[in-house]
């Protein structure tokens, strides 16, 4: 096993995926080494397969839509459950403030 092949391997892989020349320090070696050339070819094929994967899809679980919509329904229910107490509290506070303002108003003596 050639140590240089192993050191060059990441650069050979990168060059194959990017479609660029192998990094300069390893270029001369990679150009002459059959093992590195084989690795380059294998990685180029891998890169094509990776790109092809973007067109494949896994089937989502059948209940995904149900899970999402139930969660949204739950959020809405929580929002609704808060709406009434908040509105009642706001109304009570407004009335209390109105009464307070009315009681504290400056009175004119007749």
């Amino acid at each position, binding site marked *: *096993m050639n140590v240089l092949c*192993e050191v060059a*391997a*990441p650069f*050979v*892989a*990168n060059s194959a*995926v990017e479609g660029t020349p192998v990094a300069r320090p390893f270029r001369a070696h990679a150009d002459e080494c059959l*093992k590195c050339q*084989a*690795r380059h*070819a*294998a*990685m180029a*094929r*891998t*890169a094509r*397969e*990776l*790109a092809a*994967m*973007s067109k*494949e*899809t*896994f*089937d*989502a*679980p059948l209940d*995904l*839509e149900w*899970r*999402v*919509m139930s*969660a*949204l*329904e739950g*959020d809405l229910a929580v929002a609704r459950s808060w709406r009434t107490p908040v509105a009642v509290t706001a109304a009570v506070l407004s009335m209390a403030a109105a009464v307070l303002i009315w009681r504290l108003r400056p009175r004119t003596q007749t």
Partner: protein
Amino acid sequence: MDMARVERDKEKELIARAQAGDRAAFGALVREHGDEVYTLARRLVGDPHLAADIAQEALIRAWKALPNFRGDAALSTWLHRITVNTAWTQRRRARRHNGPPLDDFIDVAAPMGPDHPEMAGEILELRGRLRRALDTLPEPQRQVVVLKDVYDWSHAEIAEAMGISVSAAKVRLHRARARLARQLEQSA
């Protein structure tokens, strides 16, 4: 009028209705894009159950963020970004509970492959091995490979989504590809 345009118009209408709060329209969008979101999540995290949870959370986030969707990018691109962010948040959450996985810090060297590195065989066989090899990559490495080499994101987009610098994204990708090549060579 061509079919692609009809589909685009239909989707625009669904988006507009969903933005106005129509959950049935959003349900139709979930049906349309659910597989795509789940596929990306599955490729990012590997585990099908976790991927389902991420897809669910991503779609819920999408619903909440939908009023801000301006349509500058395609809906699928926008959903991809949300899915990646969701996967990343889940990972950070898991790290807080379990501590960082060891392979985040050290690039565990896989044993060297055999002396005959040629990858022979049918495309299907290669794809099977490729999926298995991707699954063996540490998650941060798998994510950069998936985003760059499968979904063709730029280094800058990956860096932004993963909260790392562009150079860190490049280094991670470089290591990930080397490791992937080693894994494939080993399994050949």
